[in-house]
């Protein structure tokens, strides 16, 4: 397919927009030391001004918080936390959910039943509560937050992959592969996995969008990093204390960062789904 056609295809615009947003934040994360005007915990206003948040100004486009830290810089540095947690949790959830879904769906039987039951139970439970419970066992750190998110999103990958495998199994082609006596692992790897891959990609986009919000929820409750390390959810949590005092910049900018980054993944997932012609409604 021609390169220039991507925008013209259904969902192409969405995928492009989504990818641009995602790449923007990944670039922020990688280049934080170069891009951020100040350090995340650098007192960047005169000491006598620290103690009250300072509104946006030319030196501080997003203002400063009550300790005198620059909000823009904290958003740039904070992108590192979100990007790491979300990337790590996506890799972990896929690494567990996809193989389990493939095997469970392909072989069926009692193991499949039990696995499905466990996954469905976890899936049905409110994700944020589950993540909070697991994260408070493990304590605040990027790795632990990723593990908590993994617990929440493994069932998502598992269910989608398994459902797709069941669909594929019903195809006539399978019958011929089995009669040809091909080994199971060969069938799974060469025939099923390539057909499941697009689904995984769509799930990746949508689950990651959700994961960003869950991550923000965790960090809102102080379960991802330890203050004063920069982190959007945590900054929003502390920033909200100043909203009614008129310091809207402490709430607005971290919230926008969370929402726009999640929207990037949502656009990517939705766009991909449309490209594959399986418009999603749920």
């Amino acid at each position, binding site marked *: 397919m021609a390169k220039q056609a991507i925008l013209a295809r259904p969902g192409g615009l969405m995928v492009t927009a989504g990818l641009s947003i995602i790449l923007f934040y990944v670039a922020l994360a990688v280049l934080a030391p170069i891009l951020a005007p100040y350090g995340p915990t650098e007192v960047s206003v005169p000491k006598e001004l620290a103690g009250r948040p300072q509104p946006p100004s030319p030196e501080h486009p997003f203002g400063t918080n*009550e*300790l005198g830290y620059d909000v823009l810089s904290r958003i740039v540095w904070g992108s590192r936390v979100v990007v790491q947690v979300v990337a790590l949790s996506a890799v972990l959830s896929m690494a567990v959910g996809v193989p389990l879904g493939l095997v469970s769906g392909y072989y069926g039987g009692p193991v499949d039943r039990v696995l499905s039951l466990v996954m469905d139970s976890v899936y049905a439970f409110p994700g944020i509560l589950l993540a909070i419970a697991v994260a*408070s066992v493990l304590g605040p750190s990027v790795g632990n937050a990723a593990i908590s998110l993994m617990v929440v999103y493994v069932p998502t990958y598992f269910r989608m992959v398994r459902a797709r495998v069941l669909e594929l199994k019903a195809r006539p082609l399978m019958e011929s592969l089995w009669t040809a006596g091909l080994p199971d692992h060969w069938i799974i790897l060469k025939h099923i996995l390539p057909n499941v891959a697009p689904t995984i990609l769509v799930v990746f986009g949508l689950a990651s969008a959700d994961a960003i919000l869950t991550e923000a929820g965790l960090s809102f409750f102080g379960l991802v990093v330890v*203050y*004063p390390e920069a982190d959007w959810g*945590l900054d929003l949590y502390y920033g909200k*204390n100043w909203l*009614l005092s008129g310091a809207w910049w402490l709430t607005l900018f971290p919230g926008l960062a969370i929402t726009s980054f999640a929207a990037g993944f949502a656009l990517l997932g939705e766009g991909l789904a449309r490209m594959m012609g399986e418009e999603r409604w749920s």
Partner: protein
Amino acid sequence: MAQKFNARLAIAAAVVLIIILAAGFYLFAGQGGEQAAQAPTVVIGVTDSVTELDPATSYDFFTWEVLSNVMAGLVTYDPDTGEIVGDLATGWEAREGGKVWVFTLRPDAKFADGTPCTAQDVVRSIKRVMTIGGDPSWLVTEFVEDVRAIDDYTVEFRLKQPVGYFLAVVATIPYHPVHPNYPDNEPAPDATWGGCGPYKISEFKRGEYIVLEPNPYYYGEKPKNGKVIIKFYESSQALRAALEAGDIDVAWRTLNPADIRDLQDRGYNVKEAPGLFIRYIVVKVDAPPTDRKEVRQALAAAIDRQELADRVFQGTMEPLYSMVPSGLWAHYPAFKDKYGEGANIDLAVQLLRSVGYDENNKLKVELWYTPTHYGDTEAQLAAVIKEQWEATGLIEVTLKSSEWGQYVEQLSQGQFMLSLLGWYPDYLDPDNFLTPFLLSTANTWTGTGYVNPQVDELLQQAMTETDQETRAQLYKQVQEILAEDVPYIPLLQGKLYVVLGPNVVNVEISPLQFLIYSSIEVTG
């Protein structure tokens, strides 16, 4: 089927919209509707909530406040002088060197339904606390051997050993008599029978609000209002927004420093009162590197308390230079005498160099905090302390946090090198600010590992001593040793803030830091 459902849903949605609009107009036009003509109602907002309405089991500040307004104790604190005065008791006497205490009760005390409150009620209530064995029962069982009614209006306590400050202990909530309806052996967490204080509980909706009305049989001065409603909010923001929206008349604890200052700027009447809440750092003295006294002293010297108070708490807390808060009689600012008022960087550097630390071999410490239990400023407090220590150029600080349930266990197991903690007194006596921290048999819960036989002896002596002058001398010595050994670094002392709506005329706070509901006066 689908069609019907659709129609119904549409109607339901329309009805909801109409009602919402109507609600809007109602609020716009009515602004709260008709006002009651009788004595005005006061609405207080808090971010706390009532846990158990039972003196035998509740053990948190705010529930004690509510109970203190509903129940009367044998003695209480005079709000003006801060001295202990009789309440249910008209007189008392210590016998056998403070081992036996006899109280004479007033004859006119009655519960809210008219039942007289007698010595038998006092005895039964205190025995009830001992039998049920709830969280605060140690406040009775630690001290009291036996309690009995000599006649209808005389109560006698026999203590395990003489206690000089027993009156301060008797002023606590577990010693308050409850209505005969409270079952003898079982806790009653939702009971509304109350005691014989100025108010009765007329309605309690857990997690939402509690409504109090004057006890018609109260012997003391009538409350200055006709009804008190206390609403529970989830956060400082919600509480403050409720005040600004006019939903409440009084915003009580706990507003964030940011909100207190901003409301003040916006012209709200903010009443300030000295508080007895203290903040401090626990230092582990039995493991390196903080097992060296010089290291602990250097950490204490490098702290700038005024900066903490201003930058983190917007001036809503005050520097504290001893574990005994200022305003309490034995307070002696030992840390100010020893390390000076601001950050004494020179002294800190000198101490650190004396034990071999330098720019290439920095002192590495871990400071722990718990993010929500002490309010939303905790992380900032830790961050600024880190800045201050690192300003010496010889210290490298790692901040760590864990949430409350876990924090407490790690603390008591001595897992923290340095940890931020806070303390509310159980009873108002310097003893309660020193013994739990420094007496080697009582301080295991802080995990400091601090043992000093000399301090133990001084504290024991002060406990049984009844002369206040002598006790003050003993406590001064203890505080000097505290500043020398530094098992704790006192940081800040709280102040209390009540923000008043435009119609509130008067509010008083008791020496125990409780809001006195009956003192709240509002205009129409």
